[in-house]
């Protein structure tokens, strides 16, 4: 299990694999477009943070292949469970990028409608979304639907108790969940070696009786093949799969982080040579100019969409806590309302 599944080498040449077929070129070209847009989104979001238009942004630069593949393999009825880092995956799934970034702009905890695209709110408390994913999946099974749930988490999150409980529940209930661990080698500053001394994170599947695959996380072709197979298995009653994607976080944890404190630039440089975009571009024989206009359109949309001033209505603070506000909340809302009206009055 220690050899990662790979279909494309970092230099764009084919890495033949007996088990997984190369996705066709049309599919790969479509995914290349997604990679370009994803990369541009990462860059633009970083710029917006620098301009003070976003509070914080955890970039998936370097991990775009995972982001794109995780969403691309899903069918309309499937669910995606992203984390704070998985903005690009949510966008690939069809959620409006401006809506996704509302959380990081500080407008509301979740800026999109999770039911519209079947994308759960991006989860911040690590690994906690994984049991939810199992619940959604088990519910689908009970309803006789063939829904599959793609649940994302990081290498660090695998250490949390909830990772364990979710994997085990999924195994016992044979729930149609694909767990994708983006092993980007760090949990903020903590390197993988401090997170686990197992030969691989995929090895954790054994202890749950869950089939597991280690895949080159910068090879979108391999990811599409491996995740696609896992989705099919889940949809046809084969139960959960654990996929570990071997990838790297090129940027700091977030803009607020100083990665020079805990890793060498040389390591980052080494990983830049395995860039997911470059290898697919080379394989497809593209110039790198393709989809540039679309990417710039996306960036422009982000700039405009996130420049709007203003904040949500403070009354919303009380509106959604319970389906029907309690008398106490109504009184508190009235208090705030009165304060706001008093402020507006001339002194």
């Amino acid at each position: 299990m220690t050899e990662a599944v790979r279909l494309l080498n970092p230099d764009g040449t084919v890495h033949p694999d007996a088990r997984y077929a190369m996705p066709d070129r049309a599919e790969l070209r479509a995914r290349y477009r997604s990679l370009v847009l994803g990369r541009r989104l990462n860059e633009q979001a970083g710029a917006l943070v620098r301009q003070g238009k976003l509070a914080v942004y955890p970039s998936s630069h370097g991990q775009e292949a995972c982001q794109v593949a995780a969403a691309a393999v899903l069918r309309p009825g499937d669910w995606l469970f992203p984390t704070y880092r998985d903005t690009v995956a949510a966008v690939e799934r069809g959620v409006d990028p401006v809506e996704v970034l509302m959380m990081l702009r500080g407008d509301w905890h979740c800026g999109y409608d999770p039911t519209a695209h079947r994308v759960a709110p991006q989860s911040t408390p690590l690994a906690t979304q994984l049991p939810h994913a199992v619940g959604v999946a088990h519910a689908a099974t009970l309803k006789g639907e063939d829904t599959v749930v793609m649940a994302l988490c990081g290498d660090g999150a695998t250490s949390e108790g909830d990772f364990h409980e979710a994997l085990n529940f999924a195994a016992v209930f044979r729930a149609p969940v694909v767990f994708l661990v983006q092993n980007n080698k760090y949990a903020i500053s903590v390197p993988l070696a401090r997170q686990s001394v197992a030969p691989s994170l995929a090895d954790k599947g054994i202890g749950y009786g869950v089939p597991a695959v280690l895949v080159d996380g910068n090879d979108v072709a391999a990811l599409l093949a491996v995740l696609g197979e896992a989705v099919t298995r889940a949809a046809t009653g084969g139960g959960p799969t654990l996929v570990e994607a071997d990838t790297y976080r090129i940027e700091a944890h977030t803009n607020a982080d100083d990665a020079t404190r805990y890793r060498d630039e040389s390591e980052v440089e080494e990983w830049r040579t395995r860039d997911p975009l470059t290898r697919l571009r080379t394989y497809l024989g593209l110039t790198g100019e393709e989809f540039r206009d679309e990417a710039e359109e996306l960036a422009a949309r982000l700039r405009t969409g996130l420049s709007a001033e203003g904040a949500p209505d403070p009354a919303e603070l009380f509106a959604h806590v319970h389906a029907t506000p309690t008398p106490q909340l109504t009184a508190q809302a009235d208090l705030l309302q009165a304060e706001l009206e008093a402020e507006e009055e001339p002194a």
Partner: protein
Amino acid sequence: MTATKVTMAQAINTALRDAMTEDPSVVVFGEDVAPLGGVFRVTDGLTGAFGEQRCFDTPLAESGIAGMAIGMAMNGFRPVVEMQFDAFAYPAFEQITSHLAKMGNRTRGRVRLPVVVRVPYAGGIGGVEHHCDSSEAYYAHTPGLTVVAPATNEDAYGLLREAIASPDPVIFLEPKRHYFTREEVDFARAVPPIGRAVVRRPGRDATLIAYGPSVPVALAAAGQAATEGRDLAVVDVRSIVPFDDETVTRAVAATGRAVVVAEAPGFASVAAEIGARVSEQCFPYLEAPVRRVTGFDIPYPPPKLEHHHLPSVNRILDAVDELNWDAA
């Protein structure tokens, strides 16, 4: 249907059955709830009656149970999960606090979580450590949770039915020492809704405010006081969140004196909340400070000592005695 004499465990069991019969999206799961029927037999027979898909055992992991309930609720079910004992809900604390309580708000009401977390709670059963915690304050302090504690078997049935029907998560605290207490229950009679307190006994001299397992103790104290010439009202809070200020305030204002009774350690507790809000809302009416008779600020005692810890009739009456009667 006319009233039948049933235990509280049976009343809850009937509520689960009736809810499962009426609504196929209601599912019950947890530890030992299926073939065993729960360690208190509250879920007895549900798997037999509704099948293994509707009432099932999970692996032994409370965070997983709460998390799975959240996910199932996101996908159309109304899970009713059992935490085997109060202190064994603590592993689920993050799921309950950071997700169950917050999902509706997080998603601007787009994802509501109709989950009921049943917690057999509080003491008085001679249980060893970790089996007798009164954990209501942890939930009541967490915005987004509805917190209910029935004291009667009729309420156990009626409030649970309402909790299961609620679009929001409800922490349903079952006073485990009353599981095997028999009372008349008219299953057809509607109980007052969640959010409403009930005056269980009117009285003119002072008001006892209690919920869950402390209501019978408060009633016993009031009974005893009556033989000593004092007429005590007893308010059963029932619904901790939302709290019924109106009923409680009216009762206290009418008597000018109040004692709050609860088993949990008093510090930063629900009893503290009731004490604080009654003190605030009834200020002009109070003849004496609002007193609290609560568990001590100690870990729940070993079985042989628990009776010293629990609010007793005597301790309540002692507190009542201190309510500035000279001023009357």
